[in-house]
């Protein structure tokens, strides 16, 4: 019921909105000077009146000139200011933004008489200059608002991507930034233009006798002899011009938005892929970080990190979000400058080098493909920046597309590709200029699980084939295990441990590493007695067992870690060294194994992961059992390692 009411009100309101425009056009063809609707008889006399009248045509020309000057001025001043207001941080920014927008809210009558007050003394009333300056004041807020809006929507990764591909700051601005914010500048300019063309109040005061704008002319006509039919002709022409302009804009925008896609895979059929890449073209360089520290204000993002990545190695920085791994990557790429410490690539320190001089490829988390370029142009970007001849660019891009199995996709735009395809384009773009190091910032995070797993294998094969050095950032431990030669576990801005996947899993150096890579049972305990190479310990909850430990003095506090799969369950009767009585609290069937939660004592529980073998008995919840493990499966950790 109420919905019907809403629809009726909506319809009537829309009719009300459209009514004057719908009435204006037929009235402009009236052949009487007494306007009615529908008109008595049709004629073009009011159009002829407008087009043949010197005053009307002169005022139209004046309006165009004023609007053009005012718009140009507003854009020239507003665009850089809008970009700075959206990006940079400086004191008084909010105040400056408020001042910029103020002309929108100050009543236009106040502006008009203020301009009149000042320009009259300067004898500028009745000049194009005065009108254009005043209209520019009105237009500036529109330009700034629109530029700020596109700048905020615009991903700064795009600029970083351009820098990492070798573009200087200036090249980045002209080839990327300007294209991506063009829509905002055009929209702002259009608003400023329309505002100036439609402005009456200021024109009433500043027109004087000589510089009469079209709206001022219409105002005189309407306010002096109430009904002047020429006004309807002028307004109708205005309307047609505006509609045509908007239509043309929309037409070009839609054409640019949907370039005819080439049939997929065209050109890929038959024949060998043009010159597939080989390791001969890549010379991976070693990377060394020495005591690198990064402070953001008083926050320590990275605290004295040292790391050596060998040439051709696949190194993963693994850590939870906010651990500082992306900051480390950004310092290697050159987007952040270390507060202290040194970054060395090959044998050359690059700490203070700008990103475009580093020759480091980077794949960004959201790919940062330039939306205003085709796939081909995206991949060719670093080559064009390096002023390579067109023929070589074409063959290199083809080879890069072949490498990521996207032959024939060169003419498409990034938005016409799936996530996985975009990912591969980003990879081709980062490798096409044969960088000495490839950085990847969570590049697979946006893909679904199956695609992610197949990309992991593809990336690893590619790395093996090309022999390039890779630094890969992820928070996914299984991804890190799958792909890496070595893993650096990052936590709280520090590297906790560096090692192969097996080393990290089997011998975690800290409780954090133990629990971040796989599952771990952590127990706090105290040494009771040392016998040969083993020691008997008692947990805080009172359970005792044996560990491998040399020279542990009785009374020493220890923290131990035991992997769930190292914990075995036996029937309650079986006693022996290293067995602890416990009660099964929960059993979770996982297919290949069953996970048991067992309670040792009121304070301590363990997780045991028992492989499911055919015919093996299931243990019921509530059953009394003994848990057992081999002493060498117990990893002793430093006590304070979990406290950070």
């Amino acid at each position, binding site marked *: 019921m109420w919905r019907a009411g809403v629809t009726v009100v909506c319809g009537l309101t829309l009719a009300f909105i459209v009514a004057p425009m719908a009435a204006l056009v037929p*009235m402009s063809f009236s052949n009487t000077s007494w306007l009615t609707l529908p008109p008595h008889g049709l004629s073009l006399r009011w159009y002829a009146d407008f087009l043949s009248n010197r005053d009307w045509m002169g005022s139209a020309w004046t309006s165009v000139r004023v609007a053009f000057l005012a718009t140009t001025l507003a854009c020239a001043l507003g665009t850089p200011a809008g970009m700075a207001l959206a990006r*940079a941080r400086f004191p008084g920014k909010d105040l400056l933004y408020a001042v910029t927008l103020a002309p929108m809210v100050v009543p236009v*009558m106040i502006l008009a008489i203020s301009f009149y007050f000042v320009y009259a003394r300067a004898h500028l009333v009745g000049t194009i200059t005065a009108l254009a300056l005043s209209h520019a004041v009105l237009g500036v807020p529109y330009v*700034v608002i629109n530029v700020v809006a596109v700048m905020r929507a615009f991903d700064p990764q795009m600029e970083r991507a351009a820098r990492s591909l070798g573009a200087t700051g200036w090249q980045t601005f002209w080839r990327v930034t300007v294209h991506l914010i063009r829509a905002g500048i055009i929209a702002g300019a259009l608003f400023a233009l329309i505002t100036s063309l439609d402005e009456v109040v200021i024109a009433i005061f500043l027109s004087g006798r000589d510089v009469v704008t079209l709206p001022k002319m219409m105002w005189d006509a309407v306010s002096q002899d109430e009904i002047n039919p020429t006004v309807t002709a002028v307004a109708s022409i205005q*309307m047609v011009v505006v509609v045509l302009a908007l239509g043309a804009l929309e037409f070009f925008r839609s054409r640019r938005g949907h370039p005819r896609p080439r049939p997929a895979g065209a050109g890929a059929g038959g024949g060998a892929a043009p010159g597939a890449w080989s390791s001969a073209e890549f010379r991976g360089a070693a990377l060394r970080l020495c005591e690198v520290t990064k402070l953001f204000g008083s926050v320590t993002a990275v605290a004295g990190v040292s790391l050596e990545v060998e040439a051709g190695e696949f190194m993963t920085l693994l850590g939870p979000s906010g651990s500082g791994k992306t900051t480390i990557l950004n310092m290697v790429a050159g987007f952040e400058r270390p507060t202290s410490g040194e970054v060395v690539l090959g044998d050359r320190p690059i700490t203070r080098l700008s990103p475009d001089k580093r020759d480091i490829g980077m794949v960004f988390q959201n790919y940062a493909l330039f939306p205003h370029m085709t796939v081909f142009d995206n991949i060719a970007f670093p080559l064009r920046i390096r002023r390579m001849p067109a023929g070589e660019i074409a063959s290199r891009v083809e080879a890069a597309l072949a490498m990521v199995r996207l032959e024939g996709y060169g003419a498409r735009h990034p938005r016409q590709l799936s996530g996985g395809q975009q990912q591969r384009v980003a990879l081709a773009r980062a490798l096409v200029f044969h960088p000495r190091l490839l950085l990847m910032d969570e590049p697979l995070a946006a893909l679904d699980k199956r695609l992610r797993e197949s990309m992991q294998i593809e990336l690893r094969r590619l790395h093996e084939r090309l022999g390039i050095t890779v630094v890969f950032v992820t928070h996914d431990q299984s991804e890190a295990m799958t792909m890496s030669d070595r893993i650096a576990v990052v936590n709280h801005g520090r590297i906790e441990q560096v090692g192969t996947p097996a080393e990290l899993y089997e011998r975690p150096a800290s409780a954090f590493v133990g629990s971040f890579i796989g599952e771990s049972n952590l127990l706090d305990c105290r040494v009771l007695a040392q016998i040969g190479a083993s020691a008997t310990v008692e947990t805080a909850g009172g359970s005792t067992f044996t560990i491998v430990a040399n020279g542990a003095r009785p009374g020493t506090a220890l923290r131990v870690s035991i992997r769930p799969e190292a914990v075995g369950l036996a029937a309650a009767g079986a006693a022996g060294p290293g067995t602890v009585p416990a009660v099964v609290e929960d059993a979770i069937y996982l297919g290949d194994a069953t996970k048991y939660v067992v309670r040792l004592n009121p304070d301590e529980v363990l997780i045991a992961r028992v492989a499911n073998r055919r015919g093996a008995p299931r243990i019921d919840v509530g059953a009394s059992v003994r848990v057992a493990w081999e002493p060498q499966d117990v990893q002793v950790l430093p006590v304070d390692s979990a406290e950070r």
Partner: protein
Amino acid sequence: MMRSPVLRGLLPTLPLLAFLLVFFLYPVGQMLSFSISPEGGGLAHYRELLTTPLYRRVMWETLQISVVVTLLCLALGYPVAYTLTMAPPRVANLLLILVVTPFWISILARSFTWMILLQRDGVVNQVLLGLHLVRAPVSLIYNQIGVYIGMVHVLLPFMILSLYGVMRGIDTSLLRAASNLGATEWQAFRRVFFPLSLPGVAAGCLMLFVVGLGFFITPALLGGGKVTTVSMLIEAYINQALDWGLAAALSLVLLVATVLVIALYSRAMNLDRLFGGGT
């Protein structure tokens, strides 16, 4: 080699800042300070503004027109914005084009057309007579009704765009969640959609109220001398009475009222939203 980041950030804004200082803040400041300068008459004008009933009447009328027009726009615009939000994208785009058609022609031409449509033997009166809704032609123009019609027509698209901007951001799955939890369509609207649309209502109302306070063209043309707004009074003092001091004093009052409303609002809301932020 590298300048300080503050300077690098500030530098691109300096030309605009200089421009606004010279061609915006300076003229407005000059004009306003004239109202209290000795040659402009000192504080005498403000005494006059406070004591003469005419000024109080005009200010009151300006305020009243702005409030009524804002509320009318809200009442008419909310259903339109709601329909736009709920319509399939194609229909919504079509309706949106209708909403912005007034931007295609100048505010003068619109007022002018209303003058013709609303006159004694104009189309509107003929329809009203034809439907036997009225016995004799009604005065729809050169009075307050005419000003309301004209101003609502000018400001309505801004209200609709402001409401639509916020409504479009409301997650429609919230309404499905509400109906899944047992709410009727009306209850879902009343308890979920409407509260979430309030930021748009607030932003739209503020914008319209502020802009409405400064209106000049529409009331001057459609009011037929029976309606006077502060802006019209200012214009009259300058072009007819040549009394700059009084005009400047009136301007200051109008400006202070405008800034006060915006300041009150910005305490409660993010100002970005007022200016449409994203579009």
